[in-house]
């Protein structure tokens, strides 16, 4: 028993995804605290995920959902490493400011 899509068409979801991606990009470019930069990065990844799922529904192909799950796993891993870095930086009493953390040596 096959179903058509209920509610809006796929293009509406893509619009939301594009907005999310742009908002995340704005956050990454605008904010100085690395924690909030990481959060904005998460928003970008979620925007991409939404686009993947929307296209999966559009094509009736489950590969988009598989890829979205892989992106979720990679995002989780990246958050782990990013937060570990931030905690290590703050342990050395450096300013949590991406404008100031410009060189490799503390």
């Amino acid at each position, binding site marked *: 028993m096959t179903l058509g899509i209920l509610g809006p068409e796929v293009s509406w979801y893509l619009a939301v995804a594009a907005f999310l991606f742009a908002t995340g990009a704005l956050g990454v470019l605008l904010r100085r605290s690395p924690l909030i930069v990481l959060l904005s990065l998460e928003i970008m990844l979620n925007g991409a995920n939404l686009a993947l799922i929307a296209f999966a529904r559009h094509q*009736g192909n489950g590969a988009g959902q598989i890829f979205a799950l892989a992106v979720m796993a990679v995002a989780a891993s990246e958050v782990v490493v990013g937060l570990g870095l931030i905690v290590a930086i703050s342990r050395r009493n450096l300013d949590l400011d991406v404008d100031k953390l410009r060189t490799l040596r503390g």
Partner: protein
Amino acid sequence: MFDAGNTLVWIVWIVAAFACLGSGIAVVSFTNPFFSALALIGNLGALAVLYLLLSAEFVAAAQVLVYAGAVMVMFLFVIAYLGGRADAPWAGGPSWQQVGAVAAAGAILVEIVVAIGLKAGGRLAHQQHVLSSFGSPHAIGRLFLTDHLLAFEITSIVLLVAAIGGVILGSHSRKLAGEKAL
């Protein structure tokens, strides 16, 4: 497309989409990183609702369980641990960097819309009809173990590497104490 049978779905979609966009903007504009993280949790919840509307129930559940339930807990931990010192983005009038950032983000948005609209405009109107088991765990599991086995295995390796990296980054560096003693 819009008829009485779909009204409830449309209402849910509108609420979820605006919650998504609103919480996205909230993440970027709050001063206190704890509130930004809470806004991101709201964003993830709204996205899970959107995934459910797109017949992706397993991904929606995984989103809430993994992303909103574990990754954000980790974020909140670190934010609560490090304290809420953050910058106020719009303080002291817009500097050239901020104007440039807004312009760049706007440009990205326009570029995405134009690129996808030009390339796939007509074809986006028709959706495939799918089985009711489209996003079920059964379908996803079968795909993971047949067509996309490589993606599955590589994902597990990435997670393993991240776990090891997290343990190493988090361990109190004894070498650092040794260097200081020199």
